[in-house]
């Protein structure tokens, strides 16, 4: 377990730095985690984060990679709707970085 503090409020994380309580997430939390991950959040990053959060709220799990890429096609057009662009945005990968910044738990399994 770990934690971090923003403006006097403490946020609990798991051993890998993922937010424990999804409801505590806010943009400052996202920016803070992105900072640790050395990811600079642009408009495109936010769109991915927002999609992940909305999807999680409905399905209680992060979207499958194909669903995420399909959504990116809708958001950014066919040239950017691919995993290369996803890794451009989040070099350590969607599970390790995008989910983390979006406040989602880390997907585990044989993945």
């Amino acid at each position, binding site marked *: 377990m770990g934690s971090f503090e923003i403006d006097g409020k403490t946020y609990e994380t798991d051993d890998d730095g993922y937010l424990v309580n999804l409801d505590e997430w806010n943009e400052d939390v996202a920016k803070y985690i992105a900072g640790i991950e050395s990811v600079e959040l642009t408009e495109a990053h936010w769109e991915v984060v927002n999609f992940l959060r909305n999807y999680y709220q409905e399905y209680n*799990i992060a979207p499958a990679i194909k669903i995420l890429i399909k959504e990116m096609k809708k958001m950014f057009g066919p040239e950017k709707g691919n995993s290369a662009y996803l890794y451009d945005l989040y070099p350590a990968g969607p599970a390790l970085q995008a989910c983390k910044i979006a406040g989602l738990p880390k997907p*585990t*399994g*044989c*993945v």
Partner: protein
Amino acid sequence: MADTEATATEEEPKVLTDLEKVGEPSVPRKKPNEIHPDDLVGKISIPKVEEGSAAGNKPYLCKPENMEKLGFPGDLRTDWHDAAIAKMGDLLKKYKSLQVYMDICVKCGSCTDKCHYFLGTRDGKNMPVARAELFRKVYRKYFTTEGKILGKLAGAERFDLDLLGEWYSYFHQCSQCRRCSVFCPYGIDTAEISMAAREIMDHIGVGQKYVNDIIVKVHDVGNNLGMNPKALKATLESTEEDLEEETGQKIRLPLDEVGAEVLMVTPSADFFASPHVESLLGYAKVFHQAGISWTFSTAASEAGNFGMFIGSYGQMQKVASRLTDAIQEIKPKRLIVGECGHAWRIAYSFWNTLIGPFDSLDPNYKRPEHICEYTLDLVNRGAIKLDKSKNDDFVVTMHDSCNVARGARMGDKPGGQFTIPRDLIKASCNRYVEMDEETIMEKTFCCGGGGGLLTDDLLELRVQGAMPRMQAFHKVQESHGVNFLALICAICKAQFTKILPKYGVGMDVAGGVHQLIANAIELGAKE
């Protein structure tokens, strides 16, 4: 007053509980970007031993809540020592082989350089015989006359907290791949010893987070990934749309269709991750073109069974029992298993004892069948056609999954687990190259992430353990331009996708056998 307050808030050295002492790595874990493998040289070399160099490798401990959900103690039992010895006694009685392995090792040394974790970490304690010795020391102390009387002189050692810490470390640096057993003149299977060690540790309250959390997820949600029925349905529907867009045909990914001829059981990673999902598309295209009715099932939405990794027969059975429910519900005639290494071992070697006999299934087919034998049979009978040129971008090699290679068979002939996937690959592409024969088939090296070690808290170990395989791959990459590493295991796929870039190889080099099939299969009307 003010003084005492000031000292109270000062950073005091954290006092670790006994359990934390067992689970705490002796050196801090590196961050992913700090982990760099050695440069690959011409051949796999036997390293100069660096004693204790891997002692810091320890996975996270499982939290009390999930330990208790699995029926294990939430903390290190106060009577852990006696409880561990009693459990060891039970296991020695229950598993005759374990008792034999304790007694017959002659320290010949044949196994020493056969373990990928030893080769990768250089730590002498990762030699299979040394790993087993951690168990044997305790065995001698409490279960042999010489050990009881002579103690250390007879290689016996009291089970204390330090030794337990070593157990936790080194029995989680074994992927239970059984490579060592192939080279042991007595067939001693260190994998079985490490399963027993993990079983004893869970029994006294020392569990590993990654594996135990996943078993809890299977019980609670239905699969390793934690994908609930609603998400599974939505995911399959979305993937069906993709398939239609790609092929122009209505290729289905059916779920819970009662009365389907085939019940398909595959690792949940196939629904979710890349490159796993490419094989899922392959299965769907094969079934579609074969014109057979088939379905996935919500109840059995996971082929994997992590109960094996912790040596727990009870957990293995409980996880496997989900399949019984699925068979009762769907009433299929055939049962086919997707690309998953340890799942196939369990399916082939244990399902019958765990949840068999499968009397309701059609006895004209194997119960269960592996997807590779099913597809190859269709190819051989001309029931589906493959256009090899569709894979002309690839020079392919195959990594045998250890659980398939050394824990199971496939088809009717001995060695079918090697020839069937290879024949299938060769039917789907024009260029196939074999890696060094010392690293394939029954001598295959583990991917480095098997046996419940596919977790980022063991990333450094995973990178190091992949070295022998990467070495062999590197060679055929240089000599033949190999650019596709064909796999039949979800864990291998995840492991390589993550580890290849560390060795300077693109992650998309790793892919499934049915990914090649998905590329090559001719869809549409049959002549």
